[in-house]
């Protein structure tokens, strides 16, 4: 893992000093603040909408803190997940097309270390800002709604983080395997679609990482969730996919 430390530090500095700091972290913080506000205002907005349409009457229950948590998790699972695909598509392919990978990889750093440093920096970014955003979401929810237990949100975010970590490893592989950012993003969307499709098959939900989405919903709703298989298979798949990305990159010519 020669050169790993220097390259990992460079990755963190790159995140802090380029557009990367605004995409994933920016989105997470934005949704952390706006999700409780949207949850609070949604009934009012819908009532106003219904009022402008004669004959339509909508009965909406009063918003709760659980709605705010749900809104935040929905944003993470949909919009932040899409942002992870787009940002992750350029992890390695952008360095290759800009020629920066050549100057780095002709130094004594192995290609495995290069891939791993990129993946770990992305995961660290995700972990730190997911934690900050969750705290912000809890605080704003506390301001706008009656007190509510934090555990369901913390648990759901933790499960989402596992699925996001798996997605980052998939995107790292796609970014290595495909020469262009667009092709890598397309492959990432294909992975997302395939997992959505697989989620209609109960054994896949029960025994594989496909069940993580279902698990997030159950944990958030404080329902019993069997997450052993989904978590274990997600961890194994993430490690295997990362190893495959390193293996493929070692064999590529630059």
């Amino acid at each position, binding site marked *: 893992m020669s*050169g790993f430390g*220097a390259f990992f530090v460079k990755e963190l500095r790159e995140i802090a000093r380029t557009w990367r700091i605004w995409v994933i972290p920016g989105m997470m913080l934005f949704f952390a603040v706006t999700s409780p506000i949207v949850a609070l205002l949604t009934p009012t907005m819908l009532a106003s909408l219904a009022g402008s349409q004669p004959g339509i009457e909508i009965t909406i229950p009063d918003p709760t803190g659980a709605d705010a948590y749900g809104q935040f998790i929905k944003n993470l699972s949909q919009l932040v997940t899409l942002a992870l695909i787009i940002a992750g598509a350029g992890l390695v392919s952008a360095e290759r097309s800009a020629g*920066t990978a*050549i*100057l780095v990889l002709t130094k*004594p750093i192995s290609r495995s270390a290069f891939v791993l440093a990129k993946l770990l920096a992305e995961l660290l970014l995700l972990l730190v800002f997911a934690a900050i955003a969750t705290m912000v979401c809890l605080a704003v929810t506390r301001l706008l709604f009656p007190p509510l237990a934090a555990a369901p949100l913390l648990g759901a975010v933790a499960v989402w983080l596992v699925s996001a970590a798996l997605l980052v490893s998939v995107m790292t592989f796609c970014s290595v395997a495909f020469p262009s950012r667009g092709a890598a993003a397309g492959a990432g969307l294909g992975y997302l679609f395939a997992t959505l499709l697989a989620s209609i098959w109960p054994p896949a939900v029960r025994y594989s990482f496909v069940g993580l989405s279902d698990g997030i919903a159950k944990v958030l709703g404080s329902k019993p969730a069997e997450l052993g298989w989904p978590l274990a298979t997600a961890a194994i798949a993430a490690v295997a996919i990362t190893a495959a990305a390193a293996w493929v990159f070692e064999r590529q010519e630059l």
Partner: protein
Amino acid sequence: MSTPTPAVSVRALTKRFGNATALDRVEFDVPAGSVFGFLGPNGAGKTTLLRILTGLARPTSGTASVFGVDLGERGTEIRRRIGFLPDVPGFYPWMTAAEFVSFAGRLVGVDVATLPGRVEALLDLAGLNGVSTRIGGYSRGMKQRLGVAQALVGAPDLLLLDEPTSALDPIGRREVLEMIASLRGRTTVFFSTHILADVERVCDTVAILDRGRLAAFDTVADLKRRAATERISIVVDGDAAELCERLRSRPWVQAIDRDGATLRIVAADLALACREVPEAVASLRLGLRRFEVDEASLEEVFVRVVGEKGR
């Protein structure tokens, strides 16, 4: 006495891309401490060979080693001893020059105490000390000079430079060539270029690659000597006609022509001609105003070796 290990050694090195052969059984050794010029027309395979030496590509067959270490076996380890400048270096646009050289130094394992001083010295060399703007705003020449600085940060034993002077102005070019020449004996410099004057100025040994094959490999002086046509020009005081007739009968004279007091002789044996021409001039009591053995330029050598087809 054992032969010193060459800095670079390639044996039957072949690289194919589908049906196209970029390198065809190339073999040569680069002596340690020398300044080696790697010449060839566009598409000759120079960059492919440099990519193999830096581990960016693998040969189809054959071997390449640096200081006796096979690149296929311990490539990452040997890269600690190599500095590399690609023809178009790609930098992180958000970094400053000092940050990039420092980053490169940490990658090659320069110790923390030494690094700041070395970064400053190299930025001085590159004319970039005090430039605090980000690399994204640099000109191509500035990037090229920064590329040289980052290649030197690990005090490499082997410096691989791909067209290092192509984007530089005349002053920058002279500085880089002087820097390359100053490394002679301490660092092996292997550089590819199209600028023959640069090679003539600083290189000890030259290889010419033509369509993937090694067309010539020798010292600059020997290459020029071999390509020379063994022509002599002389200018005499007095009537050169009799001298012309006397020399015409010598067995080593292949051709001779006269233009007033000037004679141009093509000699089969240059050493003999260098002895007998002054003797003939003296025996006719003529004055010798000029005696010149014509030398081929590296450009003539290059054109002769590569031929018009390769240009």
